């Protein structure tokens, strides 16, 4: 992953390329020399615990703030403000004018992105029907439920048909039905060739949707690459065990590096070089084993592992 600012012809095009970007507020360094590349047409996950620097990174990406040092390349060129017309940004917390009518507000957002009022109106109508809030278009925004406002905000980011979508916690506040609706739309947009950036700390969503990720902690990239590569590098080093009886084996330091108790089963991460058969033998001595399965670590485990190590 060597950054190459002159790429374009021979290497695959990158929608975004950050090179050693740094942002500090006073003495606090929010983003520490972060480099990452988001391939065109991919779904990219920007992960990290709360306060890791995800939002700061996104803000620099789209020119809301300017990095102290480093470069932001957008669509293969140094970032310019008119790139914004090709980008849609859904911020984490909904930002809408409360007293404006839904339709008026959507038209305003469309116009800010360079659409004519007529185009913006017809697209808004189409999208509201698709997102099932067409009945609410004449209502004031504050009358909408949180989930509906989230869908409205989502529409506002799509009206100008951006090539690059930035979704900061897009599913927050949505029930499973609406979350699925949103996910389907996003996958559809991705199929059309649009690049999507997810910023989240919800690992399960990332695991389902993203092809590449960058995990950041305390402003630094601690893990990045394709999801496949990352999981493979961790190997099948996890064991899911369903058992009845004593749990002494969980404290066997030579074999168990860490574990996560889910109630119905325990997921154990083996110590490096440990033999899973030894563990099975040990569990079987004291308890009744219903299930013993070697699995790839979930992204959540990797996340906890990496972030936990860094914080230790």
């Amino acid at each position: 992953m060597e950054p190459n600012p002159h790429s374009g012809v021979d290497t695959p095009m990158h929608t975004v390329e950050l090179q050693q970007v740094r942002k500090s507020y006073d003495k606090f360094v929010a983003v520490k020399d972060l480099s990452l590349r988001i391939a065109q047409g991919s779904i990219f996950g920007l992960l990290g615990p709360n306060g890791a620097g995800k939002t700061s990174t996104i803000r620099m990406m789209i020119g809301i703030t300017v990095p102290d040092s480093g470069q932001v390349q957008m669509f293969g060129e140094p970032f310019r403000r008119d790139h914004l017309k090709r980008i849609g940004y859904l911020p984490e917390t909904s930002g809408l004018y409360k007293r404006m009518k839904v339709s008026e507000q959507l038209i305003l957002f469309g116009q800010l992105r360079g659409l004519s009022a007529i185009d913006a109106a017809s697209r808004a109508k189409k999208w509201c029907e698709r997102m099932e809030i067409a009945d609410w278009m004449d209502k004031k925004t504050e009358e909408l439920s949180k989930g509906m406002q989230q869908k409205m905000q989502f529409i506002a980011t799509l009206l100008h048909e951006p090539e690059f979508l930035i979704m900061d916690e897009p599913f927050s506040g949505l029930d499973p039905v609406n979350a699925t609706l949103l996910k389907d739309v996003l996958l559809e947009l991705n199929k059309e060739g649009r690049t999507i950036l997810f910023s989240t700390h919800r690992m399960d969503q990332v695991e389902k949707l993203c092809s590449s990720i960058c995990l950041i902690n305390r402003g630094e990239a601690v893990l990045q690459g394709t999801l496949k590569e990352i999981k493979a590098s961790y190997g099948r080093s996890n064991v899911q065990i369903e058992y009845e009886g004593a749990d002494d084996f969980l404290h066997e330091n030579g074999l168990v590096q860490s574990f996560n108790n889910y109630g119905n089963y325990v997921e154990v991460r083996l110590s490096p070089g440990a033999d899973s058969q030894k563990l099975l033998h040990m569990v079987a001595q004291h308890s009744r084993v219903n299930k013993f399965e070697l699995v790839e670590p979930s992204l959540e485990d990797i996340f906890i592992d990496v972030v936990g190590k860094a914080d230790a």
Partner: protein
Amino acid sequence: MHNIFLFARREYLETVRKKSFIVMTILLPAMMFGFTVLPSMIASKKSGEMQKVVIATSDAQFGEDVREQFTNLPAEDNKTPKHRTNSDTSTRSFDVQIDTNVTPQEEEALTQKVNSHEIDGYLWAPPGALAQRKLSYRSRNSGDLDTVGTLSGSVRRALIHQSLSKHGASSQEIDDVLKPVDVDAKKIENGKVTESGGMGTFFSVILLMVLLYVTILMYSMSVMRSVLEEKNSRIFEVLLSAATPKELMAGKIAGAAAVGLTQILIWTLLATPLAAQAIMIGGEKFRLNLSIGNMIFFGVFFILGFVLYSALAAALGASVNSEQEAQQFQFLIMMPMIVSVIFMTPVILQPHSTMATALSLIPFCTPLLMYIRILVETPPAWQIALSLVLLIGTIYAMLAICSRIYRVGILMYGKRPTLPEIVKWLKYA
């Protein structure tokens, strides 16, 4: 530019559609009407009742003279003659009795009569007091200065009448001597005597000042609140992914200024029939001095003053997190306005003094004080030009500083920034 227009239009429509705008548009003129015209209306209505007054004097002829002066002739003291004439003939009416008994017993009896509401008051003028020219009017309401003033004028004229007739002057001659003199203040503008001046000017100055003060203050505060609201609703994150902070701030200020101008326009249209009404009720003193030139200057000073103060208000709104926090700092914005209002009267009275000139050149006071000077007595053109240059220069600097504070502040949540932190914001790229 397109974005500024979009934000300005949004801001304008949202504010104009609010109920508070409609309420304010009606309420403020109503309040001003209430504070100025209504009291004099009420005062004149109240005195429509017959007031019973007794003049207690041993000199029946003197009493007769006072009664004649008091009930028939206009009194001129402390009032403009026209106003007195107007309200006296139409509304004031007195039933004046003469009592030639000035014994202490009668004094006691009259006092009891006042107490029992049989009469409203009595003028106690025994010979000794009359010689010293120290009489007293005794009534339940010692604050009825109008009646006391009228009485004292009447007594004085009655005395002049008496002594002139002793010297053989005819009644006609005496009336000619006592005829009130009407001195009208007229303003000389561009070498010509104009119709405006005196109370008319004073009243227009106060009216326009209140309008300027209230609208600038009200709408710059509304800019602050709307910045705060947008900050708290986190809408800036979305907006900033489409527009620059400068466009946002410019749009907001332009939109609010347009609202202010709309309101002033509505008031001006309302004021025309209202002012006519006021003249009917209150007489000449309510004649407004609203020349085209004055209104153009009003617009110029409103816009400049408004932009200056609302830029400050926008920066304030961006650097705090709640309305409560904002209120602690509002006085910083209001202070120069309040200072301007405090110095309003001295500036009206002496528009050419060094103090008035100096104050009106301070950019934060210019919108109010230079405008007063233009209304009262047009200052030299170079002073107006200098004040405008200074004001526009300050606005430019303030916009540059405030937009920097605004740009950083709108994305800062949580802790309120300290002054050194805000200074640091100014240095951010």
